[in-house]
Structure formats: C-alpha cells, structure tokens
C-alpha cells in the first residue's frame, strides 16, 4: 500500500479517483490470494481429515467398508475388537510404553545433565553423533539386538523389550534434554552448592523442577515411539500373551484374508485412547510455561 501511495505522490498530482482505484485493485488481488490459499489449506486439511473421519464412521457403523458409509451407530465393532484381545493387547502396550519411558527418561536426564555441565572430551562430536544416530532406522539394529538378546536369554520378556525400546529413544531424548538443561542458569546450581547441597540433591531439587517442561516433552516423545513400536516387540517377544496392540491389530485383523473393517476401526480407536488422554493431560502441565521467573534478576 505504501509503495502505491508513494508512487502516486512521486508522479505528481494525480486524480484522487485513480489512487483509490489502484488501492481497490490491490485489495482485490490480496483477497484473491487469500481465497486461493484457504482453498489449498482446505484441500490438504481434508486429505488428512478424511481417513480419521472414516475410522470414526467405520468403528460405529454396522456396514463398515473401505468407503465412507451412511452414518449409523452401533457398538458391535468394539465388542468384536475386545473379544479379539484388544483389551489385553492395549494393556501390554501400556506396560511397554510406561516402562520404556521411565527408563529412557531417567537415563537421559542423567546423561543430559552431565553433558550440559561437565567438560567432556569431544563433546561436540559426541552430541552431533548422538543426533545422527537417533535417526538410524530400527531395521538396521533389529538383527544385532536380536542376536544379543538370544545370548542374554532376554527374549519373550516385556521388561527386556521395554529396555530395547528405551534404548532406541535415548539418543534423541538426550539431545533434547541437554538443550533444555543448558538453558537453566548455572547460578541456581552454584547457589545450591554453596548452601552445602551435593550433586544428586541439586539435580533432583533444582534442575529437574526447572527442566520439567523439557523432561515432559522427552517423556511424551518416548511414550509415543514405544506406543506405536511394531518391529522391536515383534522380533523380541514371540509370546502371544505379551503382544502389544500395535501387533495385535495386525495379527488379528489385517492378517486375515477377509479384513473386517468395523472391528479394525474400533480397535484403532481403542488403541488411540491412551495417547489422546496423555495429550490432554500434558497440555495442562505444559501450559505452565518455560520461564524461570523471579529466580534470576528481572
């Protein structure tokens, strides 16, 4: 707008109607741009939304099919999914996710604290290496881990499977947490130290409370990774009683020659419930913000 006005001024006195017409034309151009953008956004949004709509529709409808059906309401599919072992499978998933998150978070906090505060030789290389390794696809590690577990006799155990899941999440969690802990001003630890506080007390009472948002983020990422984990539990645990829901959906429904879409969708919804709950809880916690208000000057 400014350019147009300047242009009008620079060329000397023009008719005021011409200036107004230019502004109108520009406004129309902007509006057209906005409409176009909104259209594109809507298309993309729909592309993501449609599958979810289908899942909800299929789960609750009697005539589930790969297409959207006329909406109806029934809980038959849920009962069917539960009878296929969805309940137990989701319980197994919860175990794997919770245990692996606890282990991974604890380990990562300690490592991140050390990396953040201590002088470590080749720290930069170590950190970049960690980040790069966290991008390694799990398929590369599957066979070595399996062979290790055979030797250790750790197969078919939910606990040791959680351990493997934790290990796969630790590199990224360390990277994330180290950056968070870097932001906690060192003065708090110095103040705690001069008060006579030892290292673990400082970590537990000063660092952890101040880095809580970061710890929560790392925990949530680990949880979600472990929740959706398929290959590691598949390979490391052959006991059908320990099967998590990610494999359960596959085994019980998708592996059949005739896929029953209703129970499939219902199973999927049941599978998502804990994650949605986690999301709702964590937004309330994280809402507190990332500030060190009042502790340091200002």
């Amino acid at each position, binding site marked *: 707008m400014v350019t147009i006005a300047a242009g009008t001024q620079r060329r000397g006195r023009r008719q005021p109607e011409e200036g107004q017409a230019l502004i109108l034309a520009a406004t129309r151009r902007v509006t057209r741009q906005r409409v176009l953008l909104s259209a594109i956004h809507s298309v993309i949004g729909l592309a993501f939304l449609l599958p979810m709509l289908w899942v909800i529709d299929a789960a609750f409808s009697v005539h589930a099919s790969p297409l959207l059906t006329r909406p109806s309401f029934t809980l038959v599919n849920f009962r069917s999914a539960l009878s296929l072992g969805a309940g137990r499978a989701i319980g197994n998933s919860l175990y794997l996710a919770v245990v692996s998150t606890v282990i991974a978070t604890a380990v990562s906090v300690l490592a991140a604290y050390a990396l953040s505060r201590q002088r470590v030789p080749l720290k930069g290389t170590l950190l970049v290496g960690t980040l790069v390794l966290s991008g390694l696809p799990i398929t590369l590690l599957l066979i070595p881990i399996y062979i290790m577990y055979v030797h250790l006799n750790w197969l078919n155990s939910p606990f040791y499977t959680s351990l493997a899941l934790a290990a796969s999440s630790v590199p990224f969690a360390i990277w994330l947490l180290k950056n968070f802990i870097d932001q906690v*001003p060192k*003065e*708090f630890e*110095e*103040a*705690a*130290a*001069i*008060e*006579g*506080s*030892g290292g673990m*007390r400082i970590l537990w*009472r*000063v660092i952890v*409370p*101040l880095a809580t948002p970061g710890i929560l983020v790392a925990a949530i990422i680990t949880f979600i990774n472990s929740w959706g984990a398929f290959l590691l539990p598949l390979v490391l645990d052959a006991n059908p009683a320990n099967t998590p829901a990610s494999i359960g959906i596959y085994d019980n429904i998708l592996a059949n020659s005739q896929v029953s879409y209703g129970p499939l969708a219902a199973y999927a919804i049941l599978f998502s419930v804990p994650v949605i709950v986690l999301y709702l809880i964590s937004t309330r916690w994280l809402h507190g913000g990332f*500030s*060190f*208000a*009042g*502790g*340091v*000057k200002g």
Partner: protein
Amino acid sequence: MAKLVLEGVSKTFKGKPLAAVYDLDLEVEDGEFLVVVGPSGCGKTTTLRMIAGFETPSQGVIRIDGKPMNSVLPKDRNLAMVFQSYALFPHMTVAKNLSFGMKARHEPKATISREIETIAGMLGIDSLLDRKPAELSGGERQRVALGRALLRRPQAFLLDEPLSNLDAALRVQMRLEIKRIHKQFPVTTVYVTHDQVEAMTMADRIALMSGGRLQQAAAPERIYDSPANTFVATFIGTPKINLLSGSVVSDGGACHVTFLGCTYSLDSAASKALHRFAGSSVTVGFRPEEVRLAPGGGGRLPTAQGTVELVEPLGSETNVVARFDEQVIVFKVPARSGLSVGDSIRVEFEPSQMKLFDPDSGASLDLGSAHSEPQLSPIRV
C-alpha cells in the same frame, strides 16, 4: 568467623591470553568487611568466585584460617554467597528457599523453623514466606537472598554486587541494612562492587582492582588521602580528582614543583625524594574540594587564571568546571556563588593536599613518611 588469605592467586581462562586475575595477595581479617571494587572486567568477580570455589586458581593458594582451600568443593567451604541476580529458586516458596541449605545439611526440623522465624522477622520478610520469588519486588528478593546467606551461619560472607539491581533509593536503604546486619553478625565479609560510593561508605578496608591486579588495599580514608597511583586517585572520589601536568625544577638542594603557573617549594625530605625528577615533568593531583576561588585581593598562595565552562549546582554546593590554558579543572564552591559560564576566575590550591604522581607509570611519589603530609611553603610566582 575466619581469616581469609589469598597468596599469589592468578587465574587465566582458556583461550584468553590476558589473565583475569594476576598475582593477587590479599588478607581479610576475621570479622572484617572488605570491599573489592573496580571497573567492569577488573577481576573482582573472578576473585570472589575463586574464594567461593566455583573457579580454581591457576596459580597461588587460597586459605581460610590457614587451611588451603584450592581443592575443597564449594559445598564444603562453609561460605555463604549472595549473587548479583539473587539466584532464588523460582519454583520454591520463600520459606523453602530459606530452608534449602539447612535441609541439605540435615538440620532438625525444629531448628529450621525457629531459625527461619528469627531471620525472617529480622529482615522484615516474615509476611512473604509463602510467596514465590516471582511475586516479590527487587528489594524483597534481595532480603530473601540475604536471609538465605545468614541462615548458613558461614565462616565468611561473599556478596557479588548485591545492590546493583536496585533503584537508587533502595540501594541507600539496603547499604545501611547490610552494615547493620554486619554489626549484628560480625562475620568476615567480602563485598564486590563497581560503585565507589558503596565502597567508601561500607568498607572497613577497600581493595581496588584494575586489569586483574590489586592497585591498593587500605582503609577508605587512606585510599582517599593517599592513593597509590593515578588510577586509585581517579576511581575513588566524586567528582574525579584533577590531574595536572607539572614540572620539577631543582634549585641547589631544594626542589620546586610548578604547574599552571603556580610554584611550590618542597621541604628537604620531599626534595630529596623528588630529586630524580629534577628537570622533568610530574603529574600533580588535587581533589575538587582542595581547589578554591582565590580571595578577592589575592592571598598568600599563588593562583591560576581561568575561564568558567560549566556550573553544576547541586543544592548544597556547586561544582564548577573551568579551563586553564589547555587544562580543565573541576572544583567546588559554596552553593550560591553567583558564578556563570564565561566568568574569568582565579583559583588557589591547598598545598598540604598536593599529590604527586609519576607521569609515566602513574605511581604515587612518596614525598614523606607514610602518615604525614609534606611540608610545602608556597612562594609567589
């Protein structure tokens, strides 16, 4: 309560060629309030952090009560520190902040609550015990930080520019409060600041640092009256000391100092000390209050003629900036002197207060014994 000694302490940081602290020898007596003062970057905070244990000296030893402390962790040194930014734990209430140290040292609950009550009452923060630091004002936070330090019952207090984040009025009030607390708990204290007024008003002794080196460590009056070099003379005292270029002339056995057209002769002891400067230049220092308007008809003292450039009325007195040839002098006159810019004036200098400095090194030239002023008999030009 302890005696703190720094012997030949130096600190160099990796990657920085110049030492942050260089060959520092300093002693703080038991119960003494030592103020370490100097411009930004002079090494005073690094020195404090070495005493606290957050930095290790590259060279030299730090002793508390004779015991070397270089390898002792901060938590085991039994010191208390008040940080410039207070470092109050933001996620804890004031009460929890205060009790943090005692809990870390596993003191019994009853003792903890009793002590907190006493100290909080004394500092006037007992109504704030349930608040979090974010809900407190700057002065309140500072008092909580002081309270936390007091509750440590340390061998020594370390304070790192604790008043620099407060507004002027609060600073004056807290200065008094800190001195009052020190009277009540006469613990060895090392107080770091860049403010020379805080140094002069609060210190038992001042340690002035610049460029990582100790310039002078002495009582405030001594630093003011007998500065060891031009840096000390300029840093302490507001308005700044006037440093004039002068020259020394030898006349047989006696020496005369000449500056701005005024000549002063020196007694035999001073002449002897100054003999090597005969024929060369010297820096002459007079503080603003040691320069005054010459009496109307001219007095016994030689005078210099100049022009007023600036008049700064302060209410109780007035600062006058005047130009004499190429040199500018700041001096004080009584409040309603009636001087204005452009006035031609004559000033005289108080001979007993003359300070002489080596023009190259800035070091003070010792004209007589440590405690007496030189005998100067002024002669007319």
